[in-house]
């Protein structure tokens, strides 16, 4: 190659090659994500919060192209706001999910827990083995943190810190767990 093409990250699309997870418990949900945004081989943001609010008690976890994901989240946030004014009450989670599904076209399915993003492949076995019905909020938070930590250790496109959001009838709680506070495993 004789030409100067400049650094890769100037021409590569910015992706949130990522690990995201969401889990239901009796009384609420916990969502979690890592914080790495990459453009090719470069990490362009190591502290991005991929858990985006669609409404007070409805959150969305982003993966794939950072631009597209953020835009869709903002669009749905606006549409949900208008919708909630029209029905004069808080929107249903199902409505939010349908709005996202209608924008993206794909499969909409309800599950007790879900993992996504490039890092999710590495933790399917772990979540299949460890998920139990009837966990309480603290157990779910621990499960989410463990899963994120394992995925971040194996997936080159996931890393940084872990963001956790816990939502129940009393409110929404956002938390950040810094890199050195994440759980470690036998080879670390």
């Amino acid at each position, binding site marked *: 190659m004789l030409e100067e093409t400049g650094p890769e990250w100037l021409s590569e699309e910015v992706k949130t090659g990522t690990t995201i997870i969401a889990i239901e418990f009796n009384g609420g949900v916990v969502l979690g994500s890592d914080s790495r945004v990459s453009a090719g081989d470069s990490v362009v943001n190591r502290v991005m919060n991929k858990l985006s609010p669609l409404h007070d008690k409805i959150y969305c976890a982003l993966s794939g192209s950072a631009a597209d994901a953020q835009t869709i989240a903002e669009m749905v946030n606006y549409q949900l706001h208008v919708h909630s004014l029209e029905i004069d009450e808080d929107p249903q989670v199902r409505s939010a999910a349908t709005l996202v599904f209608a924008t993206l076209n794909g499969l909409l399915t309800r599950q007790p827990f879900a993992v996504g993003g490039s890092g999710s*492949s590495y*933790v399917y076995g772990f979540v299949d083995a460890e998920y139990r019905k009837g966990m309480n909020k603290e157990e779910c938070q621990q499960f989410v943190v463990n899963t994120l930590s394992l995925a971040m250790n194996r997936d080159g496109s996931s890393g940084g810190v872990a963001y956790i959001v816990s939502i129940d009838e009393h409110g929404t709680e956002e938390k950040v767990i810094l890199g050195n506070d994440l759980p470690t495993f036998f080879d670390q």
Partner: protein
Amino acid sequence: MEKRCTDSQVKGVSTGTTILAATFDGGVVIGSDSRASIGGEYVSSKTINKVIQVHDRIFSCIAGSLADAQAVTKAAKFHLSFHSVQMETPPLVIAAASVLKELCYKNKDELQAGFITAGWDRKNGPQVYVVSLGGMLISQPVTIGGSGSTYIYGYVDAKYKPNMSKEECLQFATNALALAMGRDNVSGGVAHLVVVTESGVEHVVVPGDKLPKFHDE
């Protein structure tokens, strides 16, 4: 330089597969699934054994192209038995792994097969070696391979502990294989497990319906 193909892009019969090996206190457990497929669309064998015995206490698991793997293990078995006659002693596990590595490295342009070699020898006890596609050889306490292994990295990282007992290690390996077979469409069938210790070799076959079930099944 050409990119190495992944398991799922192997032409011909591939062992789109899940293989693993783990050391425990006094031995190793080696395991695999039993499915062979063509292009990921047709299961050409439901009961193939991917754990090949290359010597009395040394086993190899194969991943990638079945034809390449069979040819390489045949050559390796021959080399090893000749080597052990010359040395007048059973071969070391690392000798077996090195033989495979030489074959993989020298023929890297033609071959598409990777191996996990594990076993027990008098000098170093239980060991696990990985020979990857291009011929790299490394030693690890636990290792997984094949297309199904992607899904159990998290599980293995979380659940493996060095110096487990034989029963714990067997349960760990069975669970890991079951989880991988549950998520990977080109892994499946029965779980073949082999336990190698100083005192001998024990084969365990867990049929599909006796595999551990997890929350969604």
